[in-house]
């Protein structure tokens, strides 16, 4: 298929349709309302369902009900709206329901602002709702990757019967880039055997997260935990940029921040300073072993985590590197995006090089 110039938000909507997901529930919120606007036109063309809900709280449960049919369902929102969906996320994780959510992050906490941020990392990766659960979290760094990961998100949701979140900052949603969609649009998969399809010739099926018997509840939590172990073993995704055996420093960054770091790395290279980038693509599962493997290489003297937050992913990096090398941090938040120059200065400081 020919390349198209598309805004990230609209490309995400089209990517879902590519994946055979034509059932969308949402509430408008900046900076991703274009997804709903796009899909309100597009879904009727493909026989899909578009519902503008009364709140993100309702969206969460519309997704629960819709996912119970066994069809592919999704929503898109931004930070405050995603907070309102955390209760339903906990319920859907507990009930083993496949669903895809997109969080085009803006600055917080509270109402915060409407400019790009990465300050929902904790909420996404550590479980924003109550209970023993995780969701798969994928972080694209370009519009094309948002399209590819969106399609993957539906496959992973179905494969593991779990909610999957695509997490991008406002830049991913708002910028226009050329994208390519797959030639073949998928037909929606047929409803699964666990779905509610009517008790015809079988016992009634119940989809729930309620287990009053502690033994049964523990069993459900252990089933979830087992699922996460498989996900940790099989679904880690990351990308290395200019990582070699001469670099003295390794940067950790994801999403748009990783692209800015790439520019900084290119410019530092011209100055004769070799720096590599480790970009986690799956934030849960986190590339723990892969990070450790890179960090212990003898040429690496120092590490730097760069985020559009006051430091959230860095806690996972610390967990991975177990104090092996000195780890620094640079971040801006509140909607401020660090420039390549700021990243370069942070790299030099971490390497003990003067200004």
């Amino acid at each position: 298929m020919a390349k198209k110039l598309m805004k990230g938000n609209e490309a995400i909507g089209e990517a879902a349709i590519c994946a055979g997901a034509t059932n969308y529930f949402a509430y408008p919120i900046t900076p991703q309302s274009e997804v709903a606007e796009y899909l309100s036109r597009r879904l009727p063309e493909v026989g899909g369902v578009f519902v503008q809900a009364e709140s993100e709280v309702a969206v969460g449960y519309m997704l629960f009900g819709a996912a119970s049919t066994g069809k592919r369902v999704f929503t898109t929102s931004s930070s405050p709206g995603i907070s309102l969906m955390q209760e339903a996320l906990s319920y859907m994780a507990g009930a083993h329901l496949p669903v895809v959510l997109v969080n085009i992050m803006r600055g917080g906490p509270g109402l915060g602002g409407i400019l790009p941020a990465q300050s929902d990392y904790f909420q996404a990766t550590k479980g924003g709702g109550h209970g023993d659960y995780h969701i798969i979290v994928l972080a694209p760094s370009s519009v094309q990757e948002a399209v590819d990961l969106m399609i993957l998100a539906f496959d992973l949701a179905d494969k593991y019967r779990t909610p999957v979140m695509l997490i991008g900052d406002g830049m991913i949603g708002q910028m226009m880039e050329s994208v390519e969609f797959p030639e073949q649009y998928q037909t929606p998969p047929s409803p699964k055997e666990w779905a509610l399809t009517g008790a015809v010739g079988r016992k009634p099926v119940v989809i729930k997260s309620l287990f009053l018997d502690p033994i049964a509840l523990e069993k459900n939590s252990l089933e979830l935990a087992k699922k996460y172990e498989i996900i940790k073993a099989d679904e880690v995704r990351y990308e290395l940029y200019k990582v070699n055996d001469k670099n003295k420093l390794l940067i950790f960054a994801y999403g748009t921040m990783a692209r800015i770091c790439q520019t900084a790395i290119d410019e530092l290279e011209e100055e004769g300073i070799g720096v590599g980038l480790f970009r986690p693509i799956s934030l849960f599962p986190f590339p723990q072993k892969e990070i450790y493997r890179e960090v212990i290489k003898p040429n690496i003297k120092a590490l730097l985590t760069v985020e559009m937050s006051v430091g959230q992913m860095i806690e996972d990096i610390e967990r991975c590197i177990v104090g092996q090398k000195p780890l620094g941090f640079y971040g801006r938040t509140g909607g401020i995006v660090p420039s390549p120059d700021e990243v370069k200065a942070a790299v030099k400081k971490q390497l003990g090089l003067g200004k």
Partner: protein
Amino acid sequence: MAQDVDIILSRPKALSDNITHYCPGCTHGIIHRLVAETIDELGIRERTAGVAPVGCSVLAYNYFNVDFMEAAHGRAPAMATGFKRLRPDMIVFTYQGDGDLASIGMGEIIHAANRGEKFTVIFVNNAIYGMTGGQMAPTTLPGQKTTTSPLGRDVTTAGYPIRMAELLSSLRTPAYIARAAVHDPMYIIDAKRKIKRAFSYQIANKCFSLVEVLSTCPTNWGLSPTVSLEWLEKNMRPYYPLGTFKTPEDEVEKK
């Protein structure tokens, strides 16, 4: 005649064999049976999906012989919306109490009704929070004593009980909205008729439908089952008038 007796004495196919956890004298059992009889009579058991609430009927999925989802507190109408939009061929009902529907789920019920979602709501109003132990509900009567209104509901701070059937009837979107009671056989027959009518509108893909059913809570009212029935008649019926508040035909007549 013999056949009718068989039906009355046997369990509807839409009810499971499980023994309910409801307190002695509670009228949930009657309402469950009315819904199950309706499902049987309309021949829809194999294409029905229910949504259970949080409250005394949280385990309703154990008692109905149909597919079920368990909702979060108040969110049953949103879940029913998501399900029914994707499966318009199926019959969907929510079964909700007054705390669930009229307090924490007020937003969801009003907007589902206003969008004209084609599912049926069985709204059980017993003027109290049952499962959590008898606290004040949005439907608790003025002066009624509960564990969180020990001196009686004070309308100057808690406001007046919400009449959900009337409130939902004020929406412009066509719907079937009725209120019934189950404290007396005559009213039980009327409640059954209204519940059947609500499901029939859904089968005809006509409109949103809701039947509010006045119910008892002997345990938390602190009354015997029989005195509870009298209490409902004497105290709830005057505040919550029975009747059909709205039908989709009203709209046609207005035009």
